[in-house]
């Protein structure tokens, strides 16, 4: 029963989602939308579980004074401060009869987004540029035909998208576009078609209960 009921739920919900596409009877579309929105809402609720997990992992580290414990206080502090900012805006909007959802775009949460989340996320991803460049230096050694093609295509695209590329040759941006629109598109399309076929077969395996890894052990 521990596995049969979940497998049955997956089969019923999954097969309905597929079959619904081919049925035009009234009400079916609304039912599908309801089921899908419910799945999305349940997923949103799992964020609470994730947050609880974050707290559950970090509290013992702080209590037992394990390595880097002061940073865990910073982590939990910023977590609760951000949740507090969101809750504060929502409660303020609710008590004044305002729009609770819109309050998140203007209230304290917006402040936390603008001055904390945005600069931190932007810099974190910008930092990757340096590591990608260093990885490229190692990966782009033209030791084989494949690596040489990777090197040439990467270099052309990068040069074509910066002003110095146009300074070297005004044709370079055009060549960069050609690489992106012709050979890149051919390879990308093949990967997309392969991935689509893979997604379909994996989806079918999940619905039919052949793929059960999401149920975990036991």
């Amino acid at each position, binding site marked *: 029963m521990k596995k049969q009921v979940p*497998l049955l*739920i*997956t089969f019923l*919900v*999954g*097969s*309905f989602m*597929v079959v619904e596409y081919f049925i035009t009877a009234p009400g079916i579309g609304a039912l599908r939308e309801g089921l899908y929105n*419910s*799945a999305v809402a*349940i*997923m949103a609720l*799992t964020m609470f*579980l994730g947050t*609880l997990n*974050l707290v559950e992992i970090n509290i013992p580290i702080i209590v037992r004074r394990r390595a880097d414990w002061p*940073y865990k206080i*910073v982590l939990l502090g*910023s*977590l609760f401060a*951000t949740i507090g*900012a*969101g809750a504060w805006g929502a409660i303020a909007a609710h008590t004044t009869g305002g729009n609770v959802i819109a309050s*998140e775009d203007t209230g304290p949460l917006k402040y936390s987004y603008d*001055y*904390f989340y945005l600069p*931190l996320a*932007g*810099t974190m*991803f910008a*930092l990757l540029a340096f590591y*990608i460049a260093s990885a*490229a230096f190692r990966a782009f050694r033209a030791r084989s*035909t494949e690596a040489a*093609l*990777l090197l040439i*295509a*990467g270099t*052309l*695209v*990068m040069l074509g*998208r910066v002003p110095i590329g146009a300074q070297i040759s005004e044709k370079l941006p055009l060549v960069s576009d*050609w*690489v992106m*629109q*012709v050979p890149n598109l*051919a*390879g*990308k*399309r*093949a*990967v*997309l*078609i392969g*991935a689509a076929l893979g*997604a*379909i077969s*994996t989806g079918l395996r*999940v619905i039919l209960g052949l793929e059960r890894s999401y*149920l975990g052990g036991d």
Partner: protein
Amino acid sequence: MSTAEIVGTWLAAFFTLAILSFLYKDNPLYKFAEHVFVGVSAGYQLVRQTFDVAWPNLLQPLWGGLHRDVDTLKAHPQWAFYSIPLAFGLLMFARLWKPIAHLSRWPMSYIVGAFAGTSIIGAASADLVIQVQSSMVNLRGTGPWTLIDNPFSLALSTFGLVCALIYFFFSKEHKGALGVVARIGVYFMMVSFGGSFGFTVMGRLSLAVGRAQSLLVRTPLNPHAPWPALVGVVVVTALIVIWERKISPPSAGEG
């Protein structure tokens, strides 16, 4: 500009430089900023998911229905049905208590089933059919010939697609003519990966340029630029030097 905004601008500059200090080496300032980032991201996502997804799709109809809100009753006459997904959502928390932990598989299987079914239709209609349709091009081109829209480029693109698809055909060993075609397919995919790589690098670099501009260029959002950045550089450097001296004090012969 309010005091909170001014403080926010200075803090944003400090955090930006604290993250960039990782380019020197892993240090407490980076770790501090990293943990703030994790906490703020998790909190922000929780709040957004709650108010953008869970509230309108689940909690608001139930709340409004229970309080006999006229608008809610009109929009969601069957509001009571929302208690089913709510119960499923709450079952997720069953995994926190071992005797009933297996019940958390029910909502998980619901989500997996819903997304597996949706992905089959989505992948078939949006990816597979659209991509195949888009590949069926008029090899003579659609207008005046350009570098991209000309018979050679269009034929090359189609040829590359067929070769790359043949590479993914594993039912027959890649030997002889099939092997040659599959090899050409690999070459096309390598060019594709190289192009995507270059594109990603440039995207990340433009983010870096954006951060630098936000620190150094005076805008209504950062009217004191470049002072927050300059002070930030001094503070971050000083703190890293102090930390370095603390973990490895200079030997007696030095200085």
